[in-house]
């Protein structure tokens, strides 16, 4: 009897659970994502996964649409010299030294709790951003700001003491990440005041106070009022499970036709393992995924598996997978291999069949020859493509004195009586596609007599500064492979280039220190981990960063790419692709171009065609 009762109760419970399946609204969307944001604080963390999420319930002063065109978001218009909102101030030599930008916020822009968005919010956002005690992730752009002044309730003026080419691009005005140039003062102001008062009382506990009270504030962890400027409003965050949003009725950007035809609810579910995420899609539990979660999967296989129930969209990611060479003369192993000689790098790029490599390890990716991706200002499509050419590679290596004198298949050369074998150390993370890359490169380079010593290490080791920034001490002895943002004409991604420069010639008087090259003299700081020093490249970069004329800037950037393509301080392998899967019928959920960076830019237009949503993208 008791057994029967147990079965009955279990049956009722399971039936109730099954009933849940059909209970969700039909005008909703469940998005699967592999990475969860750490918090919802606008000032901290700029990882793609967080920015994607913030895009659902926030919008910046500007945004980039799926055609790659910059559009005004919260702003009434994009500041330009022609509309008088951009004023560039040059010195006697004609060099731009300062600039002023005037922004006006739309009259119909409201926070999700109904409070108007004003210039006070913008000024407060900058105030927090510039508070030294605050644990903001980056001040790369806010450091350029000299002052920010309120003109009226809806208008404010930013003065930059150093040229900021990216003043209008997404996240480039004040320096917060995409989608949230402006944070709500009425929510964060009291939190900020309380935190600063506590820090003033106990400055030695500043980090603990900020971690606990600011990053850990209920508005950051989703346990209190989370207010945004975007098309949807925050509903709940079940940590390690999902975040839910509901459509706002008062958002100023509207899709064609009745808003009720479009999504009313969005849930982002966090699923770490790719096979589980894919199973969720196949089971119909997940209706779309973000642009990060299925990285490295073969779109053809996905299409075969999912059939007509889903659409698989492949776009360029804006990230370039590349081989970084150790060019530090102080690393004897690298110096012995003549990695500092551009002919060695030219031989290696020609010994690699990059078409085949990209097709095999990263389906959908396209071979790259630049440090920029297609779509960026000045991208040069006519660079030397360095085709696969074993003969040319062998000739270059022979010219450098390499020969297989002992017939073991590996090249040697003699230096000061020492016999050097061409054993090249290659390091990358343990990502599946990189493990496969190591195997393939080993085979390809063996054809020209280079023995590749493959080492795959956890990402936290490879990207630790103790490892990556200590190439001059030979922590890595040959090549380290990873992907770098290739720049898509927008901040903060556009590096111009983040890694390749050594001297920052922007300062007046010019600072000729190797401040971007990790060396003992600068405590191994800097992002130029290869140790490449090119005065010509640095000068071009400084010129480009001061040039506001798009055509002139484009010409300078092309020269930079030509220099890069000839010198090859890094060997670009391929532009990585991004895969987005969405159920058939989901419209306007698209990135379009690499410039848009993500498909999370237009949540107000997302909808199901079967519910009457119109496809406009």
């Amino acid at each position, binding site marked *: 009897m008791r057994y029967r009762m147990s079965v009955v109760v279990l049956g009722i419970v399971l039936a109730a659970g099954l009933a849940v399946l059909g209970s969700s609204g039909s005008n909703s969307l469940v998005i699967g994502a592999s990475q969860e944001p750490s918090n919802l604080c606008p000032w901290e963390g700029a990882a793609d996964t967080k920015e994607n999420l913030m895009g659902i319930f926030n919008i910046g002063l500007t945004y980039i649409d799926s055609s790659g065109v910059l559009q005004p978001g919260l702003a009434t218009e994009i500041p330009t010299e022609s509309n008088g909102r951009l004023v560039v101030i040059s010195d006697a030599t004609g060099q731009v030294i300062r600039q002023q930008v005037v922004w006006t916020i739309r009259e119909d822009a409201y926070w999700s709790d109904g409070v108007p968005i004003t210039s006070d919010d913008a000024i407060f956002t900058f105030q927090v951003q510039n508070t030294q005690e605050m644990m903001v992730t980056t001040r790369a752009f806010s450091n350029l700001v000299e002052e920010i002044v309120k003109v009226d309730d809806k208008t404010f003026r930013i003065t930059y003491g150093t040229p900021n080419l990216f003043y209008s691009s997404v996240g480039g005005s004040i320096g917060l990440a995409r989608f949230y140039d402006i944070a709500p003062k009425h929510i964060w102001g009291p939190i900020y005041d309380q935190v600063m008062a506590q820090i003033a009382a106990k400055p030695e506990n500043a980090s603990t106070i900020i971690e606990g009270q600011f990053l850990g504030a209920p508005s950051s962890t989703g346990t209190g009022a989370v207010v945004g400027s975007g098309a949807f409003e925050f509903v709940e965050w079940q940590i390690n499970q999902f975040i*839910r949003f509901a459509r706002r009725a008062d958002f100023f950007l509207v899709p064609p036709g009745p808003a009720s035809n479009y999504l009313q609810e969005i849930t982002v579910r966090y699923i770490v393992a790719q096979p589980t995420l894919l199973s*969720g899609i196949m089971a119909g539990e997940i209706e779309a995924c973000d642009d990060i979660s299925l990285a490295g999967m073969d779109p053809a296989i996905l299409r075969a598996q999912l059939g007509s129930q889903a659409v698989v969209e492949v776009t360029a990611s804006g990230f370039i997978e590349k081989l970084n060479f150790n060019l530090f003369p102080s690393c004897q192993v690298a110096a012995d291999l003549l990695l500092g000689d551009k002919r060695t790098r030219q031989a290696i790029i020609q010994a690699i069949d990059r078409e085949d490599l990209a097709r095999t390890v990263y389906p959908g990716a396209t071979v790259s020859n630049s440090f920029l991706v297609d779509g960026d200002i000045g991208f040069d499509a006519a660079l030397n493509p360095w085709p696969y050419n074993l003969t040319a590679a062998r000739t270059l290596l022979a010219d450098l004195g390499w020969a297989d004198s002992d017939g073991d298949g590996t090249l040697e050369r003699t230096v000061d009586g020492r016999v050097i074998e061409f054993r090249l150390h290659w390091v990358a993370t343990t990502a599946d596609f990189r493990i496969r890359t190591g195997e393939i490169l080993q085979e390809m380079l063996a054809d020209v007599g280079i023995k590749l010593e493959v080492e795959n290490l956890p990402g936290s080791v490879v990207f*630790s500064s103790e490892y990556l920034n200590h190439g001059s001490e030979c922590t890595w002895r040959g090549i380290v492979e990873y992907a770098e943002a290739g720049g898509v004409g927008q901040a903060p991604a556009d590096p111009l280039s983040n890694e390749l420069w050594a001297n920052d010639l922007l300062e007046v008087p010019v600072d000729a220190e190797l401040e971007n090259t990790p060396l003992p003299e600068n405590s191994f700081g800097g992002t130029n981990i290869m140790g490449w020093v090119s005065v010509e490249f640095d000068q071009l970069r400084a010129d480009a960063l001061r040039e506001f004329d798009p055509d002139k800037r484009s010409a300078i950037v092309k020269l930079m790419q030509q220099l890069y393509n000839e010198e090859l301080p890094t060997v670009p392998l391929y532009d990585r692709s991004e895969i987005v899967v969405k159920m058939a019928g989901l419209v306007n959920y698209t990135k379009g171009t690499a410039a848009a960076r993500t498909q999370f830019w237009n949540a107000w237009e997302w909808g199901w065609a079967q519910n009457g949503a119109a496809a406009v993208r």
Partner: protein
Amino acid sequence: MGLGAERCRGRAISPSSLAADSDWGVGGFPSRPGLGSEKAGVGMATYLVRRVLQLIPTLFVISLLLFGLLAMKPGDPIDEMRRGNPGFTQADYDRLREFYGLDRPWYVQYWRWLGRVVHGDFGTSRQFGRPAADYVFKYRFPNTVLLSGLSLLLSFSVAVPAGVLSALRQRGFVDYTITVVSFVGVSIPIFWMGIMLIYIFAVQFRGFLPAGGLATPGVTGTWPILGDRLRHLLLPVLALSSLQVAQWTRFMRSSMLETIQLDFVVTARSKGLSERRVIFKHALRNAILPLITLMGLNVPALFSGAILTETVFNWPGMGRAIYDAILVNDFNVAMVSLMFISLLVLLFNLLTDIAYALVDPRIRYG
């Protein structure tokens, strides 16, 4: 009947106890005369106090080692920030390292950490912006207890009868079937079993059971929530139990086979007791003891989570929390989790020792 025999009452009636009601307990262990005496009680109390006090320096050494090992690992949370942000400058990097105190030697950081911990502050999870202890004990630990506890229950409920049945039907069809199924269970990796279960029940029978996760978003009401949670638990519990059931069934079978050949079982049969009584009242109670010991030793591991099952089924438990925290340099979460597991191991060692003293009369403490 003396106290020693009284303690044996719940376990088994051994041939010797049947024969003589003597001081000999199960398996021929002599009962401890005077265990309940005042002297023995004082001895045990002293022993307990000493062991508990020993926990403090032991935990201190463990925390030092753990912190040192984590500090030796290349990378820190700021490196993680830099990786995800192309606009991150060296000045940002230096500023944040100084801010977090990561520019100081590891032992200085350790003392700061220890100073906070003794005041009950385990710091904030840099991965999730919440108090690390709160994150571990509120969002992760209960999920692990639920998953692992149910799995343990299911494994025990299946393995014991299956093992007994297999032993009683030795070399018969049932025995061979159970043996084959057990070997299959032992041979299939848990992650593969998990993926197959998902494929069958979530993909093929679309929507019959969820592919993973803890709950369906937006579900309200007690019964729907309970039903939803059960649906989400079924597959991970099945996957996690598969290996344990297989292993424990083999273990139980072997133990049972050994026990039913012992003299006291023969004696029980010769006294005319029914087969059911002989098996379940006498043999099983003895045969199950090694399995219980094995389970007891496995309990701390149970709390540290089942990383493969949690990953495949997207179950937010302790295993994945520890793994992720170490991987992304979330030191505070890693430390609070690892220290908690260490404490559990120490406590269960202590409990095991106490249990030995209670059940094995030859062992004395104090």
